[in-house]
């Protein structure tokens, strides 16, 4: 049962979803919409489970005073601060006008999001701007025909995107758009067709129970 039941469930849901695409019956649509709602609840619950897992992994390491345990305290502390601020009901401290202090739209929760999470999140990705400049200098070399084609396309697109490109030659954006619409789309569509066939094959393998890695087998 531990093995068979999950395989049967995947088979039934997967088959229903494929069939739903081809069966224009209102009852089928209603049933799939209901099941889809359950699906999104489970997906959401997985995040909560993930949160619990992080605590489970980090608390023993803090208790054992392992290397960098202080940072782990920061991690767990900030996560808890967010959870507590979010779960205290908004009605606990609600001024006459403006936002409440607590709750997921409260001042504390929003403060932590706007001034701690958001800048850290954005700056993590902003680091890539610097690394890409370094990559461009060190690794983007016209070693052979293929690399030269790639490099030329990259430069045309980069020049076509900035207003200086238009200033140098008014046709520059059109050349960039042509590369995108035709040369890029040609290769991209070949990839898409390949990926689509792969996705169908993988989907079928999962539905038929031939692929079981997601079940931990």
């Amino acid at each position, binding site marked *: 049962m531990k093995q068979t039941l999950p395989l049967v469930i995947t088979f039934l849901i997967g088959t229903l979803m494929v069939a739903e695409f081809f069966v224009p019956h209102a009852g089928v649509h209603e049933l799939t919409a209901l099941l889809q709602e359950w699906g999104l609840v489970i997906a959401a619950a997985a995040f909560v489970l993930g949160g619990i897992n992080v605590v489970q992994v980090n608390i023993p390491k803090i208790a054992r005073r392992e290397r960098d345990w202080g940072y782990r305290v920061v991690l767990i502390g900030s996560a808890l601060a967010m959870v507590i601020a979010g779960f205290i009901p908004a009605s606990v401290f609600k001024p006459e006008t403006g936002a409440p202090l607590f709750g997921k739209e409260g001042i504390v929760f929003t403060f932590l999001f706007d001034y701690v999470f958001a800048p850290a999140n954005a700056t993590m990705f902003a680091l890539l701007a610097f690394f890409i400049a370094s990559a461009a200098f060190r690794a983007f070399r016209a070693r052979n025909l293929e690399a030269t084609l790639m490099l030329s396309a990259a430069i045309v697109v980069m020049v076509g995107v900035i*207003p200086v490109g238009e200033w140098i030659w008014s046709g520059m954006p059109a050349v960039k758009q042509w590369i*995108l619409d035709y040369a*890029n789309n040609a290769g991209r569509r070949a990839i898409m067709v390949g990926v689509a066939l792969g996705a169908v094959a993988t989907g079928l393998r999962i539905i038929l129970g031939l692929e079981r890695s997601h079940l931990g087998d």
Partner: protein
Amino acid sequence: MLEKLATLDRRWLFLVMAIAIIVPLLVPVSLPFEASPPVRATYDAVEALRPGQTVLLSIDYDPAARPEVEPWARAVLRHLLRRRVKIVMMTLWDKAPPIVRSLINEIVLGEYNQRRGYFAPDQPGGRLAQDYAPYRYGEDYVFLGYKDGKEIVIAGMGQNLRQMFPVAEAEREGGDKIPVARIPVLSGISSLRDFALILEASAGFPGAKEYVQQVVTRYRLRFAAATTAVSVTDLSPYYPEQMLGLIGGMRGSAEYEQLVEAPGLGTSGLNVLTFGQIFVILAIVLGNVIFFLQRRLRPRSSPGAGGGVG
């Protein structure tokens, strides 16, 4: 000298990059630019909407992608308000609800309803706005909130929107959620097929690609999206047959701002982007000059096989 340049500490490159960004910000310059066809097509699709039609605006980005797609989100929200269409907002990204809240507070409540900024009587929005009257929550616009489930939610909305979103966010922060049955703006809407147009600000997965795959192609929906620049080449095959329009990154956002006459962070960012991109182009050229000079000086060293970007 060549060796020194070839093995240059990359922190010098980081420093020049920082200068290329900060200096043009402090000493602004601006060059004229034109809107590309996919951006103009999106603008035209919004322009063709009739007052009272209902549009879905899916805000699917996190704070990290803000500089790329938020200028468009702000510009298109102003455009939709100007067209006096009904707006249903939602998100598939867990980090987006505070962003949507701030868009509503700033643009719908702050600018439009108080006729300030872009909607001041002498500003473009104020001049062009149709049948001016304040936007009322629930009647003219609503924010449905966030749902997890990625493709499942998108496909589910294609079947039954209310099953996925049984309640909408409260009008004010901290208020109780409102059952969708009590929301007039959703009265004629049971699935994605009932929207006159679907617009999305997309920063990756789940985003424009999943919309196209799960519902747009299947139900032949009218759909346009602004995406991060990284996704443009992936989404380009969907334009123009499956996507009405495609706005790529900061440049696309700036183009849209120009079309709606609301120059903002996209436009000012684009001028800075120019210097950053010129620096990267120079870095590529310089890297290659060094590479070829070194190869000429050491003819026996074998040229490598690939040309990866590292």
